[in-house]
């Protein structure tokens, strides 16, 4: 019971998702035990009809509102991160996500057009960042996606991104 109180309170006041390892060290509990507690808290919240729950995967957890009431939260929720982004910017984001670490030149080569402004826009939104330099003359900057991008896409790591073929599974393949 005490563990439930601590976990829910920490998630309430923390800024962002919490690593499970933190809870395991704090409360001296095993990972499967922690998962059970998180499930129990969610059941409790569900039983009293609360509008949020604990979203968790194998490595971290956070309190989030329920999707079914999102329409009614439009006045208080933060603006969408992709708001106003053009299709070229989305293309650029997709290229960086799947080709990272990637140079501006490679992005422009794939798109067939200059991608400077799209890269700047994505960088200013915190979706991509400079992740080093390529070891060739001129040392072009390599771009990678950020943790925020992963959070927004609801995947735990770049390795867990769906394969590109998955996006076309329903339309092109017989």
């Amino acid at each position, binding site marked *: 019971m005490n563990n439930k109180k601590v976990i829910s309170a920490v998630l309430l*006041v923390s800024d962002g998702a919490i690593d499970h390892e933190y809870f395991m060290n704090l409360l001296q509990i095993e990972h499967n035990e922690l998962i059970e507690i998180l499930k129990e808290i969610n059941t409790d919240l569900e039983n009293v009809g609360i509008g*949020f729950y604990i979203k968790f995967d194998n490595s971290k957890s956070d309190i989030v509102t329920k999707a079914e009431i999102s329409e009614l939260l439009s006045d208080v929720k933060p603006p*969408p991160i992709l708001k106003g982004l053009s299709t070229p910017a989305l293309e650029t984001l997709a290229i960086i996500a799947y080709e990272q670490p990637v140079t501006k030149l490679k992005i422009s080569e794939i798109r067939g057009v200059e991608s400077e402004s799209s890269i700047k826009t994505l960088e200013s939104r915190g979706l991509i960042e400079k992740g080093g330099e390529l070891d060739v003359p001129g040392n072009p900057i390599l771009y990678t996606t950020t943790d925020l991008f992963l959070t927004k896409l609801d995947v735990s790591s770049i390795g867990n991104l769906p394969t590109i073929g998955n996006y076309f599974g329903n339309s092109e393949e017989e």
Partner: protein
Amino acid sequence: MNNLEVIENLKNLLVEYTSNSKDQIENNLTMIFQSFENKSLKEDIDNYAEFVLLGASLFELKAKRLLPQEDEVEWLDEVELIKDKDLAFARLLQFKAFTEVGIAMAIKVKQTEQEIPAFKYYQTNSLTIKPEIQYKLELSKFQETAVEVFSRYKTIQGFSHIDKELPDLQVAIDDLLQIVDKRLSTTFGELVSSVNSSQEAVAFFLALLEAVRWGFIKAEQTNIDKEIIIEKNYE
């Protein structure tokens, strides 16, 4: 004749020309149009345009091979001939794929954003594992240090400039450009001859660097002991 009819007619034409073929090109062509036929044309005209493009490329290749040729042309040479076209086509597909992926990712992000994380007005340090060695600073000691620093900093050498009003860099840039506009050519020594403090001289120097960077002026110093010559940039 609408687009669907055009594509249907083209499809029939190509199938007719290739249905009895045996070699690799024709097999490919037949395969493409078999999958072509399995589609409903009403679904998405763009997708079929790609099929037709690919089919047309193969048909062109076949047509070339049917033409009488003086010298025997190797299959590999033929492939070489359409390499650029293949490359362009591959890039088109790659580009289209990333466009689709970008849109799919945007849809996924939109779905994820329907669940809003709890928002805090302050930022706690991320609750990751603490390092084993921590530097401990007691609250009382911290307060003492803070009081000492805030009471003494003005008297400490090197901090005396803190309360001074610093010159505005933008104003310095404007002044510099105005002077260069008037005189067309000047030196850094002349520029700083009328300033009242070293801070103003520094501001002029920073302004000089900015103005050179933006290409408004040219600056040259042939030797470390010589004057910096400043001229308006007419390029």
